[in-house]
């Protein structure tokens, strides 16, 4: 396990630990449902990707929330090939303000979690394809903005680090001709990407408390 992965794990444990101590009976159990769009930066050959997904949140306490998500992202690698990514996972959110999720106010948070993912890269010219299943850890910052008491818009930036086999592509220039090359290595590398997610969420009520 390298240093970066240790840092991810340490922060994830810290946030989960904080969740246990920050529990509050009043907010615990709130259920949010939302849709999201994610942009992926610094992936293959520097090409940005984008995609769609859905999520739900189950609040564990006043300052702690959990997010369960699924994303489908595609990347056009400079018209030479494409990459498809699927993510399914969870994150823990720790609110930095003492009174989060207030009407017309921002609620910044730290976020960390884990996901399982599938990646496929395809090269148009030689019809070569490679894929892999792996898991990943992600960590970052974000904020909600409560437009109404129950409806929020959220923006999150996370760095996702893959823990499985390394799969990446790069462009080689052969004179004026650009060629997309795929590389797959069995050992885990430091492959990762920055994910920026915009989501719309609605609080549907409390799962285990009656009003």
């Amino acid at each position, binding site marked *: 396990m390298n240093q970066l992965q240790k840092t991810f794990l340490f922060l994830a444990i810290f946030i989960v630990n904080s969740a246990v101590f920050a529990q509050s009976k009043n907010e615990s159990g709130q259920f949010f449902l939302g*849709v*999201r*769009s994610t942009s992926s930066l610094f992936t293959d050959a520097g090409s940005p990707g*984008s*995609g*769609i*997904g*859905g999520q739900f949140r189950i609040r564990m306490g006043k300052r702690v929330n959990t997010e369960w998500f699924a994303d*489908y*992202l*595609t990347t*056009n690698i400079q*018209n030479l*090939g*494409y990459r*498809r990514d699927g993510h399914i996972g969870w994150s823990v959110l720790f609110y930095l303000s003492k009174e989060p999720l207030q009407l017309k106010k921002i609620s910044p948070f730290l976020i960390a979690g884990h996901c399982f993912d599938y990646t496929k890269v*395809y090269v*148009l010219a030689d*019809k070569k394809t490679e894929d892999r299943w792996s898991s990943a850890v992600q960590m970052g910052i974000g904020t909600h903005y409560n*437009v*109404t008491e*129950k*409806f929020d818009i959220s923006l999150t930036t996370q760095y996702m680090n893959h823990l499985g086999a390394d799969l990446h592509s790069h462009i080689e220039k052969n004179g004026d001709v650009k060629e997309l090359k795929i590389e797959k290595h069995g050992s885990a590398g430091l492959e990762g990407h920055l994910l920026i997610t915009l989501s*719309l969420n*609605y609080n549907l009520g409390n799962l285990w408390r009656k009003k």
Partner: protein
Amino acid sequence: MAKKIILLLAFLIGYNYSNARQLKYPNIFPEETPFIHKGLLRTTLTFATGYMPKQKINNLYLTGNIEYYADSKISFRGDGMYFFNSMNQDKTLKQNHSLYGGAAWHFPKKNFDAFVGLQTGLAICQLGTLYQNAPKSEIAYNPLVSPILGFNFYAQNWFHLFVNARYNIGNHLSADAIMPINELNFSFGLGFNIN
């Protein structure tokens, strides 16, 4: 003659029911109208036209949506578009169906309900013979982001007029070709609403 009487009676019943509701709920909230309020459910089915600026083609769709108002200003909405054909005999697309989900923000004023919204979508896209380099072109599932804009006009308690515009942002990625599938869509018609 009998048909005329039935039509007249149907109109009178509808008109009176609509007026009775307006009297019953004169002003639930300052911005809430007898028609536009929490719990309103509306649905539509109509034809839509689309213009793809990159390919310079016009497409024809059957489109429908269902929308639920969580309050008078926020609604959740799902849309579907079924691709018929490109109208100018272009062979770029064989299929371009899509599904969307998202939310809209409303600006209700009496019977008039202007809105803006944002949806995420998935296009089920297959290129036509222009790009086909195999016996069968690949069906690709392409994510879309789609801002929407429009208005509804509620004249009666159970139906309304609507005008809707959307702009799809996305890319078609398949073994046949890679191309943007950005498209401006426009639709209008009558929709049903349940209060």
